[in-house]
């Protein structure tokens, strides 16, 4: 295809892109992927992505324009990753005590697709850096682009849209109430006693209309519940539906109310977990960006 002169440039880009993908693979609280098989699959795709990115500029320089069309092919392949992720997460959803919800799954799937594009982009930039200024330029280019791209990928968190505080869990006969809303009706005395003893109620109070609409999304609420459950543990088992954590909107105010029985009874980490839940792309609404929304809000 092209001469071996470009081999160091391509190698540098490839290594940079691959390392960047490796860096992005850190296991976070989502515990996903959390198994060597998962790593292997994602690293392999990251490697391919980095390779394609690294080859692009040398291919252009060698006037091998056909090679650049490989980038289009890569996009096709990476889209496949999204559907693989979506499928496998959706299939394991049934086995989750507190499911992630379709919105969260879509978000994770997109993230994994995007990370391959990032690996590709970093490979491309680093090769470019090498061709312009040798290793001296390639190394900082690689590190900087990996850092910037990784930072740019971090979306807003629930904590940036709403205040989270503890609320009183009120009991009216079999009904569990928080604020103005009856959240759950529990017919078993034993279950009600446990709610009374260990239950915690929280209110997520959106700062503005954007937050209210976004956090009201059912997928977003499910994502919060899943994150809380995976970090603090929820007292819940199959056949014990009365301990299911719930989030309901207080229709009189737009606040989101939550009831939960965490295994760890500390409120502070619970609030932290809610605040750190990512805002889902699928849930994001910005009514205040529109003139209609702005007019209606005041």
């Amino acid at each position, binding site marked *: 295809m092209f001469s071996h002169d470009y081999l160091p440039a391509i190698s540098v880009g490839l290594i940079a892109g691959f390392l960047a993908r490796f860096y992005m693979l850190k296991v976070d609280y989502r515990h996903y992927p959390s198994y060597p098989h998962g790593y292997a699959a994602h690293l392999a795709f990251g490697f391919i992505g980095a390779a394609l990115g690294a080859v692009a500029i040398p291919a252009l320089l060698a006037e091998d324009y056909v090679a650049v069309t490989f980038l289009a092919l890569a996009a096709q392949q990476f889209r496949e990753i999204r559907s693989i992720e979506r499928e496998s997460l959706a299939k394991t959803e049934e086995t989750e005590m507190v499911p992630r919800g379709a919105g969260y799954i879509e978000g994770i799937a997109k993230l994994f697709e995007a990370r391959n594009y990032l690996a590709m982009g970093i490979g491309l930039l680093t090769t470019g850096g090498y061709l312009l200024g040798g290793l001296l330029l390639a190394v900082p280019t690689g590190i900087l682009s990996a850092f910037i791209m990784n930072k740019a990928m971090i979306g807003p968190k629930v904590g940036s849209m709403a205040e989270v505080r503890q609320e009183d869990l009120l009991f009216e*006969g079999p009904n569990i109430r928080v604020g103005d809303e009856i959240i759950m009706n529990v017919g*078993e005395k*034993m*279950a009600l006693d446990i709610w009374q003893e260990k239950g915690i109620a929280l209110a997520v109070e959106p700062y503005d209309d954007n937050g209210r609409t976004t956090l009201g999304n059912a997928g977003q609420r499910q994502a919060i519940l899943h994150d809380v459950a995976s970090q603090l543990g929820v007292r819940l088992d*199959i*056949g014990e*539906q*009365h301990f*299911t954590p719930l989030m309901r909107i207080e229709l009189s105010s737009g606040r989101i109310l939550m009831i939960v029985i965490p295994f760890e009874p500390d409120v502070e980490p619970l609030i932290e977990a809610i605040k750190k839940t990512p805002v889902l792309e699928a849930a994001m609404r910005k009514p205040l960006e529109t003139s209609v929304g702005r007019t209606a809000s005041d």
Partner: protein
Amino acid sequence: MDININNEILAVVTLKENAVKVAGGAPIFLVEDEKELKEITMLLARITLGMVHDLKNGVYILVRH
């Protein structure tokens, strides 16, 4: 294939004396006293993997959500 009936009344449990309050499509369990009511509702909830709701008029229903 696993078929679940969600958000439907799976069973109705109430005291014998409340029998006039209940009728219809779901299985109805009439029980002698509060103790039996507690036990039956608990067992039905575990078996159907659902939960018990208290309608506050002495009638308890089982629903799987």
